[in-house]
């Protein structure tokens, strides 16, 4: 955690986490403070996100259930609230099966490295006004560098299992990563361009305030920002292997893909990593586009900043689940085609759009309307053209009836 001095003007809820940290550190000798502070930050992050993972699995199953008009898990504890712990006990007590021909080292290493890599990205996310584990100038870069190797772990899992389904999953994971890393990064560049910084705290700070008193300066509320947000979320879905891009897992095609030969706690670790990855990318999206911990309206700032962050994060995660409940899966060639023929060109055009937005920051009055119109057109027109070419030859059909 940062050691910025606590402003006294803020509400006690806002500063409560810092005071708790200081109180804990006060129990230790001065010489241990630097390490204790880091350990505390790690412990809080792992604890909070671990708990969130546990209840996210429950929330996903509940939400999926309700969307499918069934109750979801409701037997363990009140309304199923103990279900995650029952699952954990089950996963821990299950036999850990390693196939005879498997590459044992990689087979064991894959889930561990995946969890670790999914988690370290969280270090640079500002969860609240004063809550960021590490202040980095190149924090955005760090985040994507940390997440770059996650699909490598999936590849390891798939390859080490010595199972043909797993191998196909490994190949798919590689193809997916190569395709989606590019639009993911490209959709972030406009934000960096406009905010003029790679630091996450500075990007959040740049989104503070309101235009005309009610329109927050969040990036998502600009044409280029909305476009970049959508691109980022699509790429994030693919990066975290969530439906409709869950091709490495693809249970109707590859049984469980890279997870086929995993059981017990290793399997649980993969799940944990999936949710950590999902949470990390959503947290990044909140930071980059949704104003981070900023409240949507001035008078809503009575709630502490981290509550706003959590609310936005949970909303995005619910969106992930909602999408999973609704969409079918893409095919691997369609997946890569979508990335290269739609997302990448859109992201590049969006970059130009953001540059225009950045250059015209001084326009006001009627010029402001022109600025919005141009930027909006620069999003809508390429979208229509690109999507039409992407879906050429497809569409609703008219059916005839046999003459009787």
């Amino acid at each position: 955690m940062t050691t910025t001095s606590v402003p006294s003007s803020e509400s006690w809820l806002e500063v409560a986490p810092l005071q708790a940290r200081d109180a804990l550190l006060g129990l230790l000798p001065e010489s241990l403070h630097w390490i204790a502070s880091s350990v505390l930050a790690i412990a809080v992050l792992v604890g909070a996100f671990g708990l969130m993972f546990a209840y996210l699995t429950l929330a996903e199953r509940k939400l999926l259930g309700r969307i499918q008009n069934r109750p979801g898990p409701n037997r363990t504890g009140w309304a199923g609230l103990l279900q995650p712990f029952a699952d954990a006990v089950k996963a821990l007590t299950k036999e850990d099966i390693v196939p005879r021909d498997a590459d044992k080292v990689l087979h064991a290493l894959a889930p561990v490295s995946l969890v670790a890599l999914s988690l370290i990205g969280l270090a640079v996310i500002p969860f609240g006004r004063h809550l960021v584990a590490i202040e980095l100038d190149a924090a955005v870069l760090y985040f994507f560098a940390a997440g770059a190797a996650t699909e490598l772990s999936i590849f390891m899992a798939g390859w080490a299992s010595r199972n043909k389904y797993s191998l196909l999953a490994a190949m798919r994971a590689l193809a997916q990563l190569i395709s989606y890393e590019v639009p993911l990064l490209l959709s972030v560049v406009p934000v960096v361009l406009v905010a003029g910084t790679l630091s996450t705290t500075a990007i959040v700070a740049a989104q503070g305030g309101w235009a005309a008193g009610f329109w927050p300066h969040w990036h998502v509320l600009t044409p280029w920002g909305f476009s970049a947000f959508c691109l980022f979320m699509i790429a994030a879905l693919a990066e975290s292997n969530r439906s409709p891009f869950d091709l490495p897992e693809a249970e109707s095609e590859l049984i469980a893909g890279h997870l086929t030969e995993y059981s017990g706690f290793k399997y649980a670790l993969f799940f944990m990593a999936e949710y950590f990855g999902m949470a990390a990318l959503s947290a990044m999206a909140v930071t980059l586009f949704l104003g981070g911990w900023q409240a949507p309206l001035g008078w809503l700032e009575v709630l502490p900043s981290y509550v706003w962050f959590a609310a936005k994060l949970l909303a995005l995660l619910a969106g992930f689940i909602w999408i999973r409940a609704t969409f079918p899966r893409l095919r691997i060639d369609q997946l890569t085609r979508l990335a290269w023929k739609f997302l990448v060109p859109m992201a590049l055009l969006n970059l130009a759009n953001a540059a225009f937005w950045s250059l015209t920051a001084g326009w006001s009055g009627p010029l402001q309307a022109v600025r919005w119109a141009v930027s909006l057109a620069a999003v809508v027109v390429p979208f229509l053209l690109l999507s039409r070419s992407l879906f050429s030859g497809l569409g609703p059909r008219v059916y005839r009836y046999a003459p009787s």
Partner: protein
Amino acid sequence: MIGKGLLQGLAVTARNLVGSYHDPDRYTTIEYPEVKPALPEAYRNFPFLVAEKAEDPLGTLRCVACQICEKECPPQCIYIVMDRDEKGKARMKPKVFDIDTSVCMSCQICVEVCPFDAIKMDQVFEIATDERFNALLLHRDQLAKTNTYFHQIHPTEAAEVDARLAAEKKAAEEKAKAAAAAKAASAKPAPAAPANPTPPPAPAP
């Protein structure tokens, strides 16, 4: 416009999410062990044997061990041995009546072919057991259930059966009476049930 279908789909799932909280037409789950499903009257499961009296179920079985059901049972899960006295004369009662419920496919053909309305379909479906062989082979004493029970589970059908049996009995008695009046006192009384099984009457709706 591309993406419209996707948004429509999201709207449908959202509607169902909300609907599952207030619309019983969408949220149709019955939480089974706590809430028992309402079985329709026609529901059938494994067969049972109808007995007249609860005090002596085995003694008052309607079954006369004619073995028609045994012959007609498609998976051949019924096994019947006629009860005989010391001289080998048939007592018109089953000594052994076994139904292997692990083989039975609940098709109701035994019920349809039975001329004596002696075997009917039960509605007990919670028959799970941890013993695959003996526990699923039901014997005479386990199969015998009273007519009252039959009335409870299939009231319409049971009422019809009772009415028919009563009518048949009355007809038989009158016939016997007429025969007795016409012939001398030495004539034997006719049996309670027709000697030749008639084809099964059309089942009750």
